Structure formats: structure tokens, C-alpha cells
């Protein structure tokens, strides 16, 4: 997909860590660009540091005090002669102020992601909701602005309880969400209006600690839903968005953290649904592209959807960034008949200004992809993270398997506690759902993951949970 008119010699600073840093390095190499990687002290043994030195040499790796210190990132970018910044999928990826600074500072750089105006428009859950409503796209009933006033919050909560009762819902429940949150962080349910105040106080405190913003959103809790996503890609013109199909991310931990993602989002060819699943998938892709066109969306992004048991879709939010699970959509896609699609490379390519170079009719989706998030955690104890040393990590190579990880396979590795607990992403492909599931279980059975913590206890992981959940994926 490389275009001969593209600038050739970019140096991209990777403002993130772990497996996404590795994938960005690999994409840079594929596209012929240099890179600069960062690491913090707790990450010094991460495989992303090893690979940075191996692919780019000692000068391609800088130690920083934090992945979230913008000034420091810019100082390194200048010192290293970077021409662009890729934020990975960290906090900077959806921070329009950071994106704006990248392109407006004295020594201007390219931001690999949507333009800051687009992030400002769609990165804000409230604006997104308003835009969706304007375009006739269904959204979850609830507040359409961040609420900071406790009395106003209580009033909204009460009206949502009343609204659900009017709908005939016997046990109404609402969600209180940190408006600056994302990725399932800072969300709690309230089933009893009397407990609303304490939940509100807890979420506001959490939001203040984690995001320095105590605004909350209050929404109706829709039960037994499926969580679907639409992967969108567009170039800097913002006029030609295409989609790479849908994903189903309904297998989650108790804290709304995704554990298995499947592409496509439903499989009506082998499973029965109580609604027209094909139409739902068509509807959400059409709605997503409608919004992308209206907003002038100009890079990769994900439209996140809730689908109710009766097949009613509601837009939840737009993630104006590459997501962890991008690889599962790429795995089932071909562009102009060519497979091995790399959405991160596509993001960099269009981010640097290259035209998309294809349209929706050039994209085909084949088979079923499953992504497993391999995590050291205890599913029987509220998915509590397990912290310790990994002593052994390995898996048999398969042509239908891709595995991305920052955990080394040739030495022991202490899991840092400063970051999210993902150890690896495994992406499995099958020609249909049955084959993908069988291969998924084969992979999980063969995966070797061992470790020990400071108390001498053996590593706990979610592998059994993933295996169990594989049986019922995409069933609804």
C-alpha cells in the first residue's frame, strides 16, 4: 500500500510502551521509517527495550521519568530529531491538547492520529452523543454533559430510574461514569437510588485522582448487551472513511475490561440470533461511517456500540485512536486481495499524509479472528492482578497465530505494577467460527505461562477463563 509520493525519511517517536511500542517499531521498519522509543525505570526489562536496541541501535532508546510527561517527550523528540509522534493507545492518544501541541509548537511535528480538532470533537463523550443525536444515530439514554453538581446528578439519576420504570423495567439500574475515563475505568452501577450519593462521591473521588476531572456521566444501564465495535480508517482528507468490519468485545472481566475480541461482531452463518444480526452489523457500520464523514475523521478510530438483546444498537463512544484489539480486524481483512493487513502501518502511512489509496469495495473480510488478552490475574478473585516473576513463557508457532507481547521468552521477567496488566495478545484465525474456536483452544492448551510471586505462590492467569469463554463466543 506504499505510495511513491510519500516522504521517505521520517523518524517517529513512540510515546508508549509494551506490545504496542513493539508493533509500532515493526510498522516503522516495514514502511522504511526510523523510530525513537522510550522507557521508564520499571520497564527496563521489557522486550520493547530489547527490540528497540536491536532494530534501531542504542541511540533509538531513551529513558524518561514518565510516559505521561509531555514536555519530556518533546525534549527527547527534539534531541533525537524525531519528525512525528505516535502516541500508541495511551492517554495522549485521545488528548487533543497534546495533539494540538505536537503540530503547533515551534519545532512542529506530525501527530500520528486524528487531527486535534477531530479528537476534541469526538474524544469528548458528550460532543459525540450530541453529534450522534443530530445525525439520527441512536445513543444510550442519559446525561449529555459532564455533571459536577451533586443535586443535578441526583435529579438526572432519579429521572433515569423513573424513565426505566415507565418502560416496564422492573429493576432499573443506572451507570455512573467518570466523563474523562475510558477503557472501562471509573464506572459503577447503581440499582438503588438511596445508594446513588455514595457511588457518586466514590466515582468523583476516583476521577479526580486518576483524571484530575471530577465530571461524571449518568446513563441507563442496559443489561445482557453485547459490546460491538466498528473499525474505521480514513486519510487526512477526512472525506473517504472506510470500515474494516465489526468486532465483538463482550467477553470482559468484572471491571468491564475486555478479555476476548472476535471479528466479525456476529456470525449469523453459524449461530441463531433473536434479531437480524446481519442488519445490525450493517446498521452500525453505516452509522459509524455517517458520523466519521460528518466529523471529517482523518485517521484510525473505533466506534463502540452496545447492542441490546432485541438487536437495538446504541452508540456508546468513539475512541479516537488505534485500539488494543485492532489486530483482530486486520487479521480477517484483505485490501485489493492482499492479506496480512497491518492497521498500525496504515495509521502511520495516512497519518504522515499519504492518501488512503483504496475504497470500501477494495476491502474484503474473510473468516473469523479471535484475540485473547493473556493476563496474570485471578478470575476467581474478582480478576485481581497477580504480581510476581514470570519464569517461563512460550507457545508453538502456527501459521494461523500471531502473538504480540512485551514479555521476553528467553529470560525471567518481573511484571511491573505501574501499568495495565496485559501480558500478551494472541490473535487466532480460522476459516469459520468453528475452526477459529478449535484453534483458539489448541493455542490456549499449548501456551506455557509459569511464574512465582514473592510469597512463593504460583502464577495465576486467565487462561482457563479464556478457554471456558471460547465455547460461547458470539452466541447472544
Amino acid at each position: 500500500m506504499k505510495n511513491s509520493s510519500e516522504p521517505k525519511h521520517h523518524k517517529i517517536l513512540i510515546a508508549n510502551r509494551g506490545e504496542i511500542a513493539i508493533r509500532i517499531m515493526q510498522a516503522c521498519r516495514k514502511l522504511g521509517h526510523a523510530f525513537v522509543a522510550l522507557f521508564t525505570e520499571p520497564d527496563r526489562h521489557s522486550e520493547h527495550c530489547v527490540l528497540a536496541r536491536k532494530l534501531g541501535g542504542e541511540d533509538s532508546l531513551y529513558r524518561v521519568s514518565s510516559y505521561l510527561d509531555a514536555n519530556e517527550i518533546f525534549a527527547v523528540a527534539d534531541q533525537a530529531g524525531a519528525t512525528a509522534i505516535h502516541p500508541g493507545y495511551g492517554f495522549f492518544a485521545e488528548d487533543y491538547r497534546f495533539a494540538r501541541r505536537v503540530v503547533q509548537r515551534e519545532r512542529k511535528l506530525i501527530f500520528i492520529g486524528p487531527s486535534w480538532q477531530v479528537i476534541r470533537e469526538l474524544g469528548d463523550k458528550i460532543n459525540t452523543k450530541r453529534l450522534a443525536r443530530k445525525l439520527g444515530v441512536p445513543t444510550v439514554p442519559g446525561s449529555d454533559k459532564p455533571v459536577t453538581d451533586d443535586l443535578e446528578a441526583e435529579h438526572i439519576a432519579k429521572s433515569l430510574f423513573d424513565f426505566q420504570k415507565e418502560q416496564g423495567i422492573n429493576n432499573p439500574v443506572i451507570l455512573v461514569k467518570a466523563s474523562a475515563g475510558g477503557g472501562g475505568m471509573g464506572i459503577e452501577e447503581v440499582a438503588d437510588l438511596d445508594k446513588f450519593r455514595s457511588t457518586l462521591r466514590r466515582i468523583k473521588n476516583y476521577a479526580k485522582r486518576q483524571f484530575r476531572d471530577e465530571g461524571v456521566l449518568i446513563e441507563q444501564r442496559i443489561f445482557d448487551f453485547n459490546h460491538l465495535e466498528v473499525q474505521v480508517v480514513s486519510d487526512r482528507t477526512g472525506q473517504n472513511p472506510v470500515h474494516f468490519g465489526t468486532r465483538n468485545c463482550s467477553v470482559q472481566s468484572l471491571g468491564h475490561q475486555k478479555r476476548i475480541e472476535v471479528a466479525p461482531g456476529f456470525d449469523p452463518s453459524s449461530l441463531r440470533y433473536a434479531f437480524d444480526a446481519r442488519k445490525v452489523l450493517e446498521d452500525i457500520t453505516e452509522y459509524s461511517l455517517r458520523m466519521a464523514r460528518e466529523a471529517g475523521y482523518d485517521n484510525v478510530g473505533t466506534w463502540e456500540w452496545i447492542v441490546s438483546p432485541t438487536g437495538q444498537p446504541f452508540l456508546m463512544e468513539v475512541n479516537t485512536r488505534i485500539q488494543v484489539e485492532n489486530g483482530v480486524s486486520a487479521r480477517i481483512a484483505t485490501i485489493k486481495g492482499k492479506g496480512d493487513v497491518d492497521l498500525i502501518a496504515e495509521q502511520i502511512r495516512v497519518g504522515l499524509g499519504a492518501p488512503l489509496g483504496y475504497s470500501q469495495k477494495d476491502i474484503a473480510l474473510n473468516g473469523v479472528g479471535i484475540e485473547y488478552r493473556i493476563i496474570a490475574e485471578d478470575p476467581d478473585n474478582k480478576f485481581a492482578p497477580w504480581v510476581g516473576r514470570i519464569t517461563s513463557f512460550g507457545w508453538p508457532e502456527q501459521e494461523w497465530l500471531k502473538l504480540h507481547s512485551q514479555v521476553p521468552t528467553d529470560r525471567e521477567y518481573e511484571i511491573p505494577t505501574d501499568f495495565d496488566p496485559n501480558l500478551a495478545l494472541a490473535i487466532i484465525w480460522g476459516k469459520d467460527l468453528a475452526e477459529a474456536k478449535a484453534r483458539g483452544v489448541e493455542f490456549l492448551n499449548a501456551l506455557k505461562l509459569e511464574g512465582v510471586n514473592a510469597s512463593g505462590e504460583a502464577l495465576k492467569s486467565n487462561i482457563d477463563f479464556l478457554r471456558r469463554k471460547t465455547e460461547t463466543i458470539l452466541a447472544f
Partner: protein
Amino acid sequence: MIDVKELLRELREEPYEKIVIRAPHSGKVEFVASEPGVRVVGPGGTWKEVPGTLLARLEREQVKRPINAPQKGEVMSLGDVQNGQFVQAGQELMTIRHFLTKEEVIARILRRSLSLFLAPEKGKYYFFPEVDIKIKTKGSQTVHVEDGMELFILSRMKRETSVRYTGPGGIIYAVYFETNDSVDRDAPLIGVCPESQLGQIQEVVSRIQSEWEERD
């Protein structure tokens, strides 16, 4: 009961602390105090509002961040860094020899006298909001803790869990962690003094006040 005499003897043998000054972040360093033997002072004023001696400046994004001496002492040695060089976060810039003050000696001895509650896991610790407000407004020594009391919020890997205090009941005599700092497993979080031993602890404090001689 703790042997204060023995502890004081140990401290008198090496009455100073070596403080390694490291680059707090990446940037270009410009030294100000760059000679071994230079005397420096730490932050002063009622609220420590007067910064310590300027040791160096670290520039990033055209902003020069001062690096001030955190304590009184003298420059012992310099790191292997040239003036104007780009340094990475954590790189050693210099070492200061700091002679212990009475308060620091007290803190060191208290750490061995109080009942310490250690961090059960590595992560960031916060007091429960109600306790936090009380500590901020009235001081930690107004907070009484009991075995089993939910006292901390542990934040790690983007998750938060509550942590119960285990140990003897008493008042929080000392707090050993800062908000937003990552605390290692088994590092002390608080030092608790049972009300019945408060008199003994205060006796230790007054003894050090009278016996320890501070060096300039």
C-alpha cells in the same frame, strides 16, 4: 524497649547521609554548583517556600527547571555528565553529603520504635478520603487506627482495591509515603504508636533533642 543509647552510637559513627541527585526527567543540564566541597543549603522558610541552593538547571521544551539542593550539606562528587549535555531521566548528576539533623535522627529512631504497617504490595497508596481529610486538616496524630480498619486505597495496574490496617491500635505517629508515589512492597506506610506507649515515645524524642549535636 528500644536501646536509644546504642542507636545514637551507631548514628554518630556515620552522622551523614549521601544524597544522590539524579535528573528528574530528560533534558539539557546546565550546572550551577559544580565543584566538590561547595556548601549547599536545603529548602527554608516556615513552609519550606524558600528553595535550596540552585545546583543545576534542566531544560526541556524551552523551560528551565531548577534542581535545588534537597538538604543542607556539601557537594561530594559529580556524576559523569558535562555541562550542556542532554541527560536521560534518572542519570546521576552529583552526590551531596548531608549531616543529619535532630529531626532526622528522631525519624530514624522512631522508625525502629513505632509499629510499622508495611505495604502489602507494590503500588500507589492513598488514605481513604475521610482519613485523608482529617490528616490534612488536623494532622496524622489525630487519627486513631484499629486492627482490621479499612485505611488505604491501593492503586496499581489501573485498578483500585481497599487495604485494611493490621496491627496494634493506636495513633498514626508518622506517615512514610507521599501521594502519587509508587511504594515498594514491604516499605513502611505508617508508624503507629499505641496510646499506652505515647509517653515513652515522647521521652525518646526529648532525649534525642537534648543529646544530638547538629553539625553545620
